């Protein structure tokens, strides 16, 4: 019965009235569908295309609000941003069709797409953009996006010029402001929806919310009036499976089609050994680091920091820690695909490291405590490999493994030497957020004035080559000087059924309305 209902929705042109009716029908049909979900997926797939995604919820208080610190995984199915990244990480039109800045780079004007509708039928206009940005910046939202936006925007700095034009007045010039509008928190929500968006999920995206059980399950349904065309899938279901082994089992047993959490090596081997499954592997911008506190001895001395970096043999580390599934980062956190990246090759040089230590007043080498935790898979193995490599340069590393429960609270950023990790961030964001003096996430407490100036100048350069110069200068300073040892970027590995089409390894550029099932 449920299947018939859905075909019926598909054949008829959707009017507002049928849209409401069908949503109700779908809600009724769901319990029926979920019952035999494990037993007969192939027969069902012929009539209704349902993509089943397993995920590990990070918190049970999940919210559909894109600005929330507990946002759900399905943001880009429900919402659109003004701009989205293309394959090179550059801004490309999403809900905005074009944008331009004034000569000073501090006033930005975005032309918006017209004729776009929200899931509830309401027309998308400039006022929704104004509302969304103010919502992100509202302290009550506790949005992780606020830290990024508030560097250039205050509440009320966005105005609707007319229904399809919106203007941003920045606190300071930012030549790459559109990059900030790719932040997931700026996914556009309807005006006045702050109180309800967490449960309604009304956006302009290719899928609309059907049933949301926070921390357990999230069912989305095709939005037929999606502005880029009708999505290929009828339904997408996110199922919470906390245990990594259980997720792999669910995929192998054909209870789910896609695992969106990163696979460990054992799971990747299990999955790639199956003829009906595959592992999508792609370089990511995620990095693991050994971080020296630049304000704590012996790391106050730049020569000691440089010596600590010189013991890394990138190829050996990637082989030992990631079983080869990674790319050398050369102590530079800017993603390899980022147009601003300064290409850098670092080589191991232990005799130079010894020289530097001697010059810094440590003729007999140094002894340091390295704090780490298994809360992230690669941190402990990186620490172990590092301790081994450092011996040759006269650096004795004592490993301190801390329980994952207390590590981030008690040790991370508080010790002189510790491990950490960060997800992919575009050049301007990562350089300002994690390495700049005074930034809250500057975990190494490294402060370099020249570096800050280079970043400031970069933001004011409206010409691309001049901007590239400044960003690269900042990166060279950082590689030579900073407290971060960044040996590699981790490859992302995701498991999926071969029936899934259109899902790419670079998950940030997946076009969800083009994802299908065969």
């Amino acid at each position, binding site marked *: 019965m449920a299947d018939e209902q859905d075909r019926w929705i598909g054949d008829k042109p959707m009017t507002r009235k049928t849209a409401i009716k069908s949503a109700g029908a779908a809600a009724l049909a769901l*319990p029926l569908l*979920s*019952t035999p*979900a*494990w*037993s007969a997926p192939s027969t069902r797939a012929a009539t209704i295309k349902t993509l*089943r995604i397993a995920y590990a919820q*990070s*918190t*049970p*208080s999940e919210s559909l609000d894109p600005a929330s*610190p*507990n946002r759900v995984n399905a943001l880009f199915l429900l919402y659109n941003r003004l701009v989205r990244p293309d394959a090179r990480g550059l801004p490309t039109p999403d809900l905005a069709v074009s944008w331009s800045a004034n000569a000073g780079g501090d006033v930005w004007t975005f032309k918006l797409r017209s004729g776009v509708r929200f899931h509830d039928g309401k027309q998308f206009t400039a006022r929704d953009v104004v509302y969304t940005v103010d919502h992100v910046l509202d*302290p*009550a939202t*506790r949005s*992780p996006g*606020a*830290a990024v936006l508030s560097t250039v925007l205050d509440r009320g700095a966005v105005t609707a010029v007319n229904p399809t034009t919106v203007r941003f007045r920045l606190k300071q010039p930012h030549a790459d402001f559109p990059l900030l509008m790719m932040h997931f928190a700026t996914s556009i929500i309807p005006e006045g929806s702050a109180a309800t968006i967490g449960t309604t999920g009304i956006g302009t995206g290719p899928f609309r919310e059907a049933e949301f*059980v*926070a*921390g*357990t*399950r999230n069912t989305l349904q095709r939005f037929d009036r999606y502005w880029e065309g009708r999505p290929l899938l009828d339904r997408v279901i996110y*199922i919470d*499976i*906390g*245990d990594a*082994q*259980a*997720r792999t*089992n*669910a995929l*192998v*047993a054909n*209870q*789910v089609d896609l695992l969106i959490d990163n696979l460990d090596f054992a799971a990747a081997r299990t999955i790639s050994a199956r003829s009906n499954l595959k592992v999508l592997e792609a370089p990511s911008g995620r990095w693991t680091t050994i971080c020296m506190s630049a304000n704590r001895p012996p790391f106050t001395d730049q020569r000691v920091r440089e010596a600590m970096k010189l013991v890394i043999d990138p190829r050996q580390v990637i082989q030992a820690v990631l079983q080869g599934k990674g790319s050398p980062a050369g102590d530079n956190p800017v993603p390899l695909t980022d147009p601003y990246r300064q290409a850098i090759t670092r080589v191991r040089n232990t005799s130079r490291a010894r020289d530097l230590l001697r010059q810094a007043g440590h003729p007999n080498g140094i002894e340091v405590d390295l704090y780490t935790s298994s809360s992230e898979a690669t941190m402990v193995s990186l620490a172990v490999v590092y301790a081994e490599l450092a011996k040759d340069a006269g650096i004795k590393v004592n490993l301190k493994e801390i329980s994952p*429960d*207390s590590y*981030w*609270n*008690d040790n*991370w950023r508080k010790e002189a030497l510790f491990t950490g990790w960060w997800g992919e961030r575009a050049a301007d964001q990562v350089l300002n957020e994690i390495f700049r003096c005074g930034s*809250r*996430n500057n975990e190494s407490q490294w402060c370099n004035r020249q570096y800050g100036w280079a970043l400031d100048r970069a933001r004011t350069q409206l010409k691309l080559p001049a901007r590239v110069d400044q960003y690269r200068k900042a990166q060279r300073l950082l590689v030579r000087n900073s407290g971060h040892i960044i040996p590699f970027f981790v490859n992302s590995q995701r498991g999926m059924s071969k029936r899934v089409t259109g899902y790419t390894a670079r998950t940030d550029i997946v076009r969800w309305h083009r994802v299908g099932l065969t």
Partner: protein
Amino acid sequence: VLKLVWRRILLSLLTLFLVSIIVFAATEVLPGDVATAVLGREATPEAVESLRQELGLDEPAVERYREWLQGLLTGDLGQSLSRDEPIADLVGVRLRNTLILATVAALIGIPVALALGIVAGARRDSILDVLVSIVALVTMSLPEFVVGTILILVFSLWLGIVPAVTTVDPDASISALMPNVWLPALTLAIVMIGWIVRMMRTCLIESLDSDYVRMATLRGLSRRRIVLAHAVPNALLPTISVIALTVAWLIGGVVIVEAVFNYPGIGTLTVEAVHNRDLPLVQAVTLIGAATFILVNLIADLLMLAANPRLRTMRT
């Protein structure tokens, strides 16, 4: 006898009270709180502080404990801090799921274990006995996740007759839930069988060695009759307490099995609660665990009292 029962119940309540204090204190000592757990590593200090105030975490621990206890006495388990739902709703449906799981496991495990124990004990030192004893030892020493993984491999991946992990909602109907119950229940049954088998076997061998069995043999009763009618009932007495402990473990100790199978019961809820430092929820699930443990043991004691006239008439 009634007086005895009352005393046991009062003692149990005192135990529960002490458990709640210990659990509260232990969770307090854990690093971080629900605000840091929910907001994550990159939360700003201001956001953490405002959430703390909103949840009342800025009050002193003693005050929070008093409020929680007061709520409990009026039958209110309180509100989950991390899920923003009444705890009674959260716990109720998961308790149902775990009870279903434990019941099925007990119904499979206990009869099989008793039968195996009786066979092994009655035919002491036979090949069958050696075989049963070895199997019992192996299942006792295998951790739950190993047994579970093997069962998934065989029944879900090779045979494909039951789902590998549970993907239905916690509040799914029992009929929707049942296909997901078999594997975790079988895992629990296999892990618990060993203890009961060994206890049953030992006790039966002891009974068979006793004077009244020799007496019965001399009177010419059949071996079968001696074992089933005379030796087994006596051997069952000490076995009951082992069964009770095992059943209590079933309900309190399903954490690993539920995680392996993604089964939405008390176990997975406990892990989540501790992970999120959701104190009222941790309190609720641990109290339920402790209460079950005490209750099952109380029932076992009463059963033994009923079965053993000597204990029954003893004045305490």
